[in-house]
């Protein structure tokens, strides 16, 4: 009885079209020490997550150099590379350190505190 079921099952598997194994790229990130940022370590080609993890280990942890790996399907990575989003056309230099100059404004404020009339004031 179990044999018949096994035969049917085997026949069903044999007759179904072979699944198309697709090798996909997976990005590998590694961590040198606990607390360090995850750093990109390259990519591997694998048909699924389980083997991707095995291959990532060979790529980035074979010599005991990592305490943690992240393995992500490249297709699951959301990419932003639109220059309009990343480098806006209008001047936004005030968002930079040094892009908003405080020196003169500070001088004015110190002068006020010290009691001196500032330029244009009585």
């Amino acid at each position, binding site marked *: 009885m179990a044999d018949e079921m096994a035969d049917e099952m085997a026949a069903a598997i044999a007759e179904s079209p072979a699944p198309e194994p697709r090798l996909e790229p997976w990005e590998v990130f590694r961590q040198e020490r606990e607390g360090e940022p995850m750093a990109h370590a390259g990519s*591997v080609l694998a048909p699924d997550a389980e083997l991707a993890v095995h291959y990532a280990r060979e790529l980035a942890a074979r010599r005991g150099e990592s305490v943690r790996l992240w393995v992500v399907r490249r297709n699951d990575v959301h990419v932003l590379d639109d220059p309009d989003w990343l480098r806006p056309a209008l001047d936004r230099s005030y968002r930079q350190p040094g892009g908003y100059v405080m020196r003169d404004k500070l001088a004015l404020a110190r002068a006020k505190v010290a009691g001196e009339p500032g330029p244009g004031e009585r």
Partner: protein
Amino acid sequence: MTTIAAGLAPALRSALANLILSMADDDLVIGYWDSEWTGIAPLLEEDVATSSIAQDEIGHARALYGLIGELTGTDADAVAYDRPAGAFRHARLLDGPRGNWAMTVARRALYEAADAVRLEALAGSGYAPLAGLVRKIQREEAYHLAHSDAWLERLARGGEEARGRLLAALDTLAPDAATVFAPLPDERALVDAAVLPQPMRILEQRWRERLAPDFRQLRLPMPGPAIDAEHGRDRHADAFRWLWEEMTSVRRLDPEATW
């Protein structure tokens, strides 16, 4: 010879050396066969993984030969390579060449499960140096087992051709599969001294219990009892002769050379 080793009765020391030799030879032989995939494995990533695993096995063998060296006052290289083919004590399961990918996967699946059962038992060995080494080896072997299981499943469910080849490989290996648990010489002494916590026939049972659920789920036939089980480790197929020639060739060119 270490103090611990010297403290063992000669008969027990000899039996222990045979036990470790069987483990070391298993790892050396499967390591060598699987290392043949380097450069020609079906996937580039798999080339790296399989080479790495084969290398691990040879590393385990080397550590085990080292333990034998401590027991017998020789060195690991001499134990490993200065023996004729007939003196090797690996399981007959491992005699044959790596074959195609399905054969390698099938054999690994059978062997890794057997090795896992053996290591689990010996992690509790009364011979501390062996127990200690086994516990380290177990940590690496967990990776081998996971990799082996991953491929067994992929081939079993991989469609007609993959499954067909896997079944053919399992069929070829079936008569020799259980030779990993071939009875050892002086096994009784080892069990009595708690060096081998359970006899091989108990370990074989555990191996079958371990394999059965996966094999059932994947609709794969379980191997039966080994043919000529008594000689599962001391009668080897001609295919092994070829491997012995290869793996000892450099050593035999000049046994005194240092590398």
